[in-house]
Each structure stands twice: as structure tokens, then as C-alpha cells.
């Protein structure tokens, strides 16, 4: 066992987190939880960036993470606003009940 954790470990972890996020988006009905799952995906990506940054000796990855966080925050802000607007018109948070538009 080497002293340092190899990059692959971080990458596998982040891949697993990403897939968990994807699975969450897929199986959950509650819009908010779906949002959380998406955040999970973005966090997984962040982990990848940081891990690469560490092993490539490049700070770029870390900077990018900051942008991603900003974007994530923005998405959440707008997303929650939409949910609130929606909630005023329809008291449901289940995505499969939001199906006025189809066909």
C-alpha cells in the first residue's frame, strides 16, 4: 500500500457519486430531491476536477470548480424560483404529475 492515494481512487469515487446522482435523478419524483441529485452530479464532477488538478499540477481544475459552484448556485436559485412559481399554480412537487405538456 503506497502512502498516497492514487488518482484512480478519487476518480472512481467521483464516477460513483456521479452515477448515484444520475440514479437519483432517474428514480426520484420529488423535484427538490431531483435537484439535489443533480447537485450530487455536479459535486462529483468537481471532485474529478480537483483530483486532476492535484495530479496534473495544474490549478485550472480548482478554478473551474469555483465556476461550477457558481453555476450550480445559479441553477438552484432559478430552479427554486421556478418551483415556487409552479407551486403557486399547482400544489404538487412530483415530476410525473407535471405533465400538462406531452405528445
Amino acid at each position, binding site marked *: 500500500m503506497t502512502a498516497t492515494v492514487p488518482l484512480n481512487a478519487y476518480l472512481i469515487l467521483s464516477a460513483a457519486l456521479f452515477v448515484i446522482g*444520475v440514479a437519483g435523478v432517474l428514480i426520484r419524483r420529488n423535484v427538490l430531491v431531483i435537484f439535489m441529485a443533480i447537485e450530487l452530479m455536479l459535486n462529483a464532477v468537481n471532485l474529478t476536477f480537483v483530483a486532476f488538478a492535484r495530479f496534473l499540477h495544474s490549478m485550472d481544475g480548482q478554478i473551474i470548480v469555483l465556476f461550477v459552484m457558481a453555476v450550480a448556485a445559479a441553477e438552484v436559485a432559478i430552479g427554486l424560483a421556478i418551483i415556487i412559481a409552479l407551486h403557486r399554480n399547482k400544489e404538487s412537487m412530483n*415530476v410525473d404529475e407535471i405533465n400538462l405538456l406531452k*405528445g
Partner: protein
Amino acid sequence: MIWLIPIIPLAGSLIVGLIGRRMPRTLATVIACGTPSLSLLLSVMAFVRLLQMPAEGRLLRSSIGSWIASGDFSVSFGFLFDPLSAIMALVVCGVGLLIHIYSIGYMAEDRDYHRFFALLNLFLAEMLVLVLADNYLLLFVGWEGVGLCSYLLIGFWFERPAAASAGTKAFLVNRIGDGAMVVGLIWMILLFGSVDFQTVLTDAPTVLVYGSVTASLLTLLLFIGATGKSAQLPLYVWLPDAMEGPTPVSALIHAATMVTAGIYLVARSAPLFQLAPVSLEIVAWVGGLTALYAASIALVQTDIKRIIAYSTISQLGYMFLGLGVGAYAAGIFHLMTHAFFKALLFLSAGSVIHALAGEQDIRKMGGLRQFLRVTAGSFLVGALANAGIAPFAGFWSKDEILAAVYASGHGPLWVIGALTAAGTGLYMFRLYFLAFEGKSRLDAHMLSHLHEAPWSMRLPLVLLALGSATVGFVGVPPGSGLLQRFLGPVFPASAHEATAEPTSEVVLAVAVLAMAVGGIVMAYRYYLLDPQRSEALAARYPALYRTFFHKYWVDELYETAVVRPTVTSARTLSELFDARIVDGSVNGIAALAARAGSLLRRLQTGQVPTYILSILVGAVVLLGYLAFSG
């Protein structure tokens, strides 16, 4: 100048047809009858000029110009006046003129008087184009043109369903023959590069090998055309029905002129036929069989015009018989005499019908002679001529044909011809006796209506009767009469005419004459002396009688074998194949697309998880391919 001969009646037709209604009726009549007179005059003048020429080079030509020129093929509006055309033109114009005059009286009451004369003129024009054309294609113009006129004239009283369908039938049956003829013509172009009589007929011996299949097929195609127009087996069926037209039309078109076009065609193409012995044989047999066949049907018909119509078919059969054995001049001779006496018969019949307010059934007539003396007299002349009783016209020409048949060694055909002669005597005089002699069977209405025809009708009758009685003498003595000598140069030298010894010829003639007289006597006995005996005869041979009476069921046969299958298959094609399969597959493809669209649409559930799944599956597949496909 020659080209004027057909053009003048054409002009007359246009004038009468388009503006005739707006001019006084007399003027229209004068124009309508004046144009055939002019044509006749011109023909006579041309004929005279022809006679002034040396016998071997009797030929007048005139050309208006090129008609169709395409690539290496060209054909002109050219007319030709040689002895053969001369005879035809004279017959057409002469008989035509008489019938025009006759029609003035016959059609006087008809509201479509102008239309009738316009069509009659048009017919004359087309017929003259047919006989004067110097090439096959122009001949074909006249050929189909007379067909059109015939169609329109048969259907002249188009409001009668029978007339309408008879017209259509005539055109269509003719068209079948014409189709074959067109094929013949295009083949001719391929072979000769031309359709000019001169080129084709001159080059024929070099281009076609004697007895070759090509020669046979080519001539047969032409002959099929001729059988259509000249009402021979198996395309004769239209002619009896054509009697739905006004009687002058029957006289002019369906007896004297148009139906002889086929004879003319074959005679004109004699150099071609001469190269195709098989075709000649077929022509002879078709002619002979038709003659007998039609005569047998004529024996039992009751419609006055139909009897004459079958007689026409039978006589045309004689002509073909003559042509088929190479006796071209004899065929034309019979054509000429036939034109006279058959026109006469028809016009007389017309006169009868006119007098009886349209009645045509001979069983309802009888004893007419006492009321219609001129008519009866002229009919009798015509009947005698038709039956081939010497010295009337029909005797000479028929005799010459049968002599040639015998001379060419066609024994069976001669027998057929002789039998037909007997039949002719029988049916002609059956008709005569039933209609004009014996007791009157007229009803009161007819009797009150009964009157002799006006002068315009009587005059042609008398003239034609004279002609029928005398015109035969142009062919006397047989084989070397005026007519034969005049026509001789037109036909190939190899034509073996009248090679039999004079003595045997006389014997044959007497034999045939005896047969004809026998027929007449039989008619006298069965129909005048003791009408019951005819019925007894019919009862004795019911199958034969029914066969004759129903015209061998040929119409029915065509109906079941040709017409109905065609219509049924057309309906099947239209309703099943076209609508279901061809159109159905088109609509099917469209429906398939719409169906696919609807199915795909159902995937669009409106639910986010579905969409996510779609993206996910897409991504998985895509990644799988991109990263792991090697």
C-alpha cells in the same frame, strides 16, 4: 386538279355543316348535292383524259405538298388517278350523287337535315381521299375518315339507344382492323422506307421474297384491316347493326362504297399480295366462307335492311374470293356492279320503309307491288342482279369471279360460291316475295300512310335500276371486256385470269345460273305459293334454323369472349388493382408514416423521468460505442 375531287365535297360539308342552318334550305340542298356533281364531273373529265392516254401509262398525279416529314421518312398529300382509282371514283361519285338526290326526299322531314348532308358530303370527301390517295398513309386518312362518317351516320338518330350502340360498335370493330393495318403500315415503312404506292408496289418484288413470312404477315395485316372495313369474317359483326342508320346511309356507305374499301385496298396492293400466296389463299377462303355464311344468315332474317346487309357481306365475300384467286379485275368488276344493285336494293328498301312509316319487318308487309310500282320494279331488278341472273349486272361479275376460282383450281371454293349463289337467289326472292308479292299483311295505320316516294327518290331508283340492269356489259365478254382491258395494266401480269377454256366457262356459268334460279324457284315455292312450308322447313331443322336465325350466336360469342372479359378485367384493374394495390400502397406508406408518428409520439409522455431515461440510454449507448468499439 385531281385533288379537287375530294376537296370539293369537303368544302361542301363544311359549308353545310357549319352555316347550313342559316341559309335557305334549298341553297343548302343545292350545295350538298352540287359538290358530288362537281366531283363526278371532274372524275369523268379525268377519266376521259385517262382514256386518251396510252393503255400502259394511264396515270394522272397531283400533289398538294408534303404532309409528314420526319427524319428519313416523308409522306405527301399526293393523289393519283389511274384506272383503278378511276373506276372507284366514278362509282363513288356516281352512286354517291344519286344517293344524295334520293336523300333530299328521304330526309326531308328530319330536323337534322343539314347535319345529314354535311356528313354525307364529308363521307364522300373521305371516300375520295381513300380511293385517290397515292400512298397508304393518305389512304388511311380516308379509311378512318369514312369510318368516322359511318360511325356518325349510323348513330345519326343517336337518341335511339340501338343506333348509338350500333355506331359505336361499327367504329370499334373497324378500329380493330385498323389497328392491324397501322401495324402493317409501320412495317411497310420499315421495309420500304416509304408508303407511296409507287415505291412500295414497284419495289415489292425486290424487297420481299416470294412466299416469305414477311410478305405473308404484311399482307395479312393489311387484309385484317380490309376485313374490318369490308365486313368479312370475323369482323363483319358491325355491318348488320349498321342498319340502324338512315337508309340512304346504308345504301351509300354500307353497301356501295365504304365497305368496298377493303376490296380496293387488296386490289391496290395486288403486287404485294402476289408475293404472298398464303395470304391470297386466306383471302380467298375468308371471302368464300363469308359469302356462304352471310347468305345462310340472310335466309332467315326478317328485317328488310338486315337481309340486304347480310347480302352485302355475302357479296363482299365474293369479291374477296375473286381477289384471293388473283382475279383482281373480276373483284373490282363485282364491286362495281354490286355498287349499283346494292344501292338500288337499299334505296328501294328505303322507299318501302319510307312508305310504311318506318316499318322494316317483312313479315308485316306483303303485296306492296300494287302500291309501290316503281319501288317494286326497281327492287326486282336489284334482286335479279343480286341473285346473279343473266343478263343483269350481278351475273356477269359473279360469273367471272367463280370462273376464275374454278380456273385457279380451287374446287371447294367454287362449290361454296355456287352454293352461295343458290342461297342468294333464295334469300333475295324470299325477301321480294314476302314484301312485294302475295297478300298484304299491312295494318290499317300503314295502309293509310302508304304512298309512293317523291320524285327525288324515284329518280335515283330508276337510274340505278337501269345501271343494275346494264352495267354488267362493260365486263363482257368475260376476261376481256372493256373493264378488264382498262384495269389490266394496274394489276400484276402474273394474275391468272380467265385461263379456263371458254367452253367450260360457259358450262360453269350455266351451272351457277341454274343454282341461282333454283334458289329463286325454291323461294317462290316456299314463300309465295305455300308459306306454311317454310315454317315446316324451319321446324324440321330447328338447330340449323336457330343457328341461322341467331346469326351463329357470334354476337353473343363476342360478347362473352371479348367484350365482357375486357370490361370485367378493366373493372378489376380499376377497382381492385388500381384502387387497392397501386393507390393503396401509396396511401399505405402515408398511413404507415402517420402510424409511426403516433407510436413515437406516445413515447413523449410528458414525464420528466422518461426524458431522463431517454437521455441516459442514449448516453450509455453513445459512450459504449465511442469508448469501447475498438
